[in-house]
């Protein structure tokens, strides 16, 4: 006979059931082994990943689409074995400074968790966070000298704005002129450096400032730049000692003060260990799926 909960008790009239018994305490997220009917292949709504749930709770994300997008992003990054390489992931979801500030990897409201601190003029919306290009930057509180390895570092930036400017979208500079930064588009080129001296000629052409940009170092003389999941530039530029300053988003941490203010809207950014070619491509797949779910992909 059918249970009062309507899902069945595994009797003959119910070969595919969700319930375990009359006093069914098994919920939607339970594993197949807990289901009553042996042939059950359907296992209800997947449980929310605990790391995704921690972010959703901290940022008070109530929109089901945004919650689902975050959960899928986390599970995809874990499935691609990228999650553990990340130190900071900024999904810029929720539409306000109070939701955009959180680091998905560690969503505590602390400097030690690399939670963003917004400075100057920002505009926050459902499509991301837009610096004004005049005095806006976000301090990640993430110091690469304390957090990352000289020869294994990546940074990323998802730009929704097609502008050309002599600016930095994410980055920092050491006192010794070593740079780690992304400049999505300036004079129709995309430039990224990771723990190295700035060489303007070390770039790739780029006629559209929109897209997902990654600067990635995987060795003492191996750095590659990616746009939208494709490797667009390879460099043998030797690595330098990391800067002893915090990464800024929306500008360059110029060995202390902010400079090179960008006006490109940010819909995602990350800082972490270096990525393999396969991981870089998969990273784009995961991030672009996230943006598509939120209907803000470019």
């Amino acid at each position: 006979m059918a249970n009062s909960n309507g899902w069945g008790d595994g009797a003959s009239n119910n070969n595919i059931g969700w319930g375990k018994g009359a006093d069914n305490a098994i919920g939607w997220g339970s594993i197949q082994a807990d289901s009553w009917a042996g042939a059950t292949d359907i296992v209800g709504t997947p449980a929310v990943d605990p790391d995704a749930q921690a972010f959703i709770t901290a940022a008070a994300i109530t929109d089901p689409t945004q919650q689902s997008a975050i959960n899928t992003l986390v599970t995809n990054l874990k499935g691609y074995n990228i999650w553990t390489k990340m130190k900071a992931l900024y999904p810029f979801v929720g539409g306000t400074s109070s939701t955009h500030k959180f680091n998905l990897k560690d969503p505590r409201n602390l400097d030690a968790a690399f939670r963003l601190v917004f400075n100057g003029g920002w505009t926050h919306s459902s499509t991301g966070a837009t610096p004004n290009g005049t005095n806006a930057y976000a301090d990640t509180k993430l110091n690469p000298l304390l957090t990352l390895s000289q020869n294994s570092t990546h940074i990323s930036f998802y730009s929704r704005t097609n502008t050309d400017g002599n600016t930095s979208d994410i980055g920092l500079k050491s006192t010794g002129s070593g740079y780690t930064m992304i400049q999505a588009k300036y004079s129709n080129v995309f430039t990224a450096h990771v723990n190295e001296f700035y060489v303007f000629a070390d770039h790739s052409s780029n006629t559209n400032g929109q897209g997902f940009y990654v600067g990635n170092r995987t060795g003492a003389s191996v750095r590659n730049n990616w746009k939208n999941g494709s490797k667009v530039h390879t460099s043998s530029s030797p690595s330098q000692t990391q800067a002893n300053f915090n990464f800024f988003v929306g500008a360059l941490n110029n060995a202390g003060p902010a400079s090179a203010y960008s006006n490109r809207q940010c819909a995602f950014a990350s800082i972490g260990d270096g990525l393999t070619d396969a991981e870089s491509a998969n990273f784009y797949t995961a991030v672009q799926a996230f943006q598509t779910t939120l209907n803000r992909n470019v």
Partner: protein
Amino acid sequence: MIQVGLLTEVQKDELQGQWYAPDSYFNPIQDVNDNWIISQEEMQQNVNPSFDWVRDLPLIPYEPKPTPPPFK
């Protein structure tokens, strides 16, 4: 031309390190003429009652300082 709010030296000192909205802080900078300025976003989004006066700052055209090397 972008318009920005013009600050006095005293006003700049008052705003530095202070919040204007949740998780957002004023960032006075100097323009090419060494005027201290803040953006219109900061003026319009300010909800800190201690600094209601920023809404009434005079507006001037923004003339940025040259971007330092290597971004030149």
